[in-house]
């Protein structure tokens, strides 16, 4: 009997369990560990503050999406003892493994910024929307908001779904427009980057859109602390911005057990070979989804492309054969831009998001880096694709590796 252990039953872990149960023979025992039985559709958090989605809508039992023939162990992970090929769990058990797949993602850490989680304004005037609790409470705060200064503020990279803060700022603008109090609301997007996004072409296009919507941009703002008494955010170089409502994206790090196991870098992300996703420390550990340190977006789409590339590699590796595939860091994200429209970004390790059409050159139907209604429909349709196609590990009609077809290069 060979033992495969998967840590985390979120986006990547659930896909892995489904695909590998089909691919591996019955002499493989597959075990999946997660701390609870609530699988949350995280892209849905974005719509909860605006009342478009209810909190109930985004949560479903994990066990419903895990295949037969896989053991689900519901408890916290305490420590990986990689030298012994064992994992200690919070319920006191120890699970041995031959192969370990880590898919425990990343999480927001409002406790790491002074005055954030420990401040008197937390969940009163300061909110995140990267958790179900935060996005639900933000819904009430937005409903009660009648005017004043709103800051949508990004603390530091990397974060999961790096476009989500931008989507939020466009949607919040639209929300107040629809409520007919846009003129009473002053919106600023605050970022430690030198523009709206990390990559130049997208940064320019998204920056222009902010200008069009009268959203202010405060760039190069690295948050040091929140001054709760004066209702201000303060940067390391001493700049101060006042707010009536602060929507913050806290620092994101890997899970505590990753730090405790000595597996992570300073942010708790696990170093891997960026093409094979194999741990640089241990040959029998691979890291899928947000938990690794690969230099591309932390997104469900990347988890998906990563898993597709990984499976044939894993099947080769367990037979002691060379791995056939190389992951290119392909990321593909819809960016909600308000007014019932969205943009689409498609990029990888080497190529930044460009303008053009997707997936068919010249035809689309999706427009890259341009706003369209069909992109927005694509974003909304993704919810059903997620539960019905992605998690069960069915093939989606988009290419795994990024293609330059249909993209406009500029220099």
């Amino acid at each position, binding site marked *: 009997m060979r033992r495969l252990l998967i840590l985390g039953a979120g986006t990547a872990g659930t896909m892995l369990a489904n695909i590998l149960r089909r691919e591996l023979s019955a002499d493989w025992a597959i075990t999946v560990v997660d701390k609870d039985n609530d699988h949350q559709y995280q892209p849905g958090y974005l719509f909860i503050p605006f009342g478009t989605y209810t909190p109930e809508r985004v949560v479903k039992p994990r066990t419903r999406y895990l295949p037969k023939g896989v053991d689900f162990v519901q408890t916290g992970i305490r420590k990986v003892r990689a030298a012994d090929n064992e994992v200690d769990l919070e319920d006191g058990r120890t699970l041995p493994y031959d192969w370990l797949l880590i898919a425990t993602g990343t999480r927001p850490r409002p406790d790491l910024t002074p005055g954030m989680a420990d401040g008197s304004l937390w969940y009163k005037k300061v909110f995140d929307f990267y958790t179900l609790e935060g996005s639900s409470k933000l819904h009430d705060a937005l409903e009660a908001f009648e005017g004043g200064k709103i800051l949508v503020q990004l603390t530091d990279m*990397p974060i999961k779904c*790096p476009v989500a803060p931008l989507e939020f700022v466009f949607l919040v603008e639209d929300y107040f427009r629809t409520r007919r109090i846009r003129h009473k609301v002053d919106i600023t997007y605050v970022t430690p*980057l*030198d523009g709206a996004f990390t990559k130049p072409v997208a940064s320019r296009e998204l920056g222009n859109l902010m200008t069009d919507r009268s959203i202010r941009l405060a760039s190069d703002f690295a948050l040091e602390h929140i001054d709760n008494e004066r209702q201000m955010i303060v940067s390391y170089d001493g700049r101060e911005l006042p707010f009536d409502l602060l929507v913050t994206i806290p620092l994101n790090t890997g899970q505590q057990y990753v730090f405790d196991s000595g597996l992570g870098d*300073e942010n708790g992300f696990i170093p891997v070979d960026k093409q094979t996703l194999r741990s640089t420390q241990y040959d029998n550990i691979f890291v899928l989804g947000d938990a690794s340190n690969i230099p591309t*977006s932390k997104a469900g789409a990347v988890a998906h492309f990563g898993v597709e590339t990984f499976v044939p590699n894993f099947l080769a590796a367990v037979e002691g054969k060379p791995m056939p595939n190389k992951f290119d860091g392909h990321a593909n994200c819809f960016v909600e831009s308000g007014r019932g429209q969205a943009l689409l970004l498609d990029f990888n390790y080497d190529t930044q998001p460009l303008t053009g059409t997707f997936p068919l050159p010249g035809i689309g139907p999706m427009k890259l880096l341009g706003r369209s209604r069909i992109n927005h429909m694509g974003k909304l349709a993704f919810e059903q694709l997620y539960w019905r196609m992605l998690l069960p590990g069915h093939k989606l009609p988009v290419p795994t590796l990024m293609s330059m077809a249909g993209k406009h290069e500029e220099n």
Partner: protein
Amino acid sequence: MPTNTLNERTFHVNDEGFFTNRDEWSEELGADLAALIDIEMDEEHWGPIRFMREDSAKSGVTPTLRRLQTVGGFDIKELYRLYPGKPAKKMAWIAGLPKPVGCV
């Protein structure tokens, strides 16, 4: 690949002016680069630069501010004082390292 020449020393850079070959760097060159952006190097300034050189030699990547804080023990606020505005970028440039990619 463009080359730059500064005080008779030639080195390779990318289109944003960051070094592409870390071995072409020396402290003298770093000090000359710093002068171009109005920074006068003293012991306080060299601390984080030397840490960045050593750390990146091991890891292959330019350390981020957070890594300078958690692993190097430097105070981020202090780094903003020494290298005003964009410390991570400025320090990487002076240290002859690639632009930090902490931002994906």
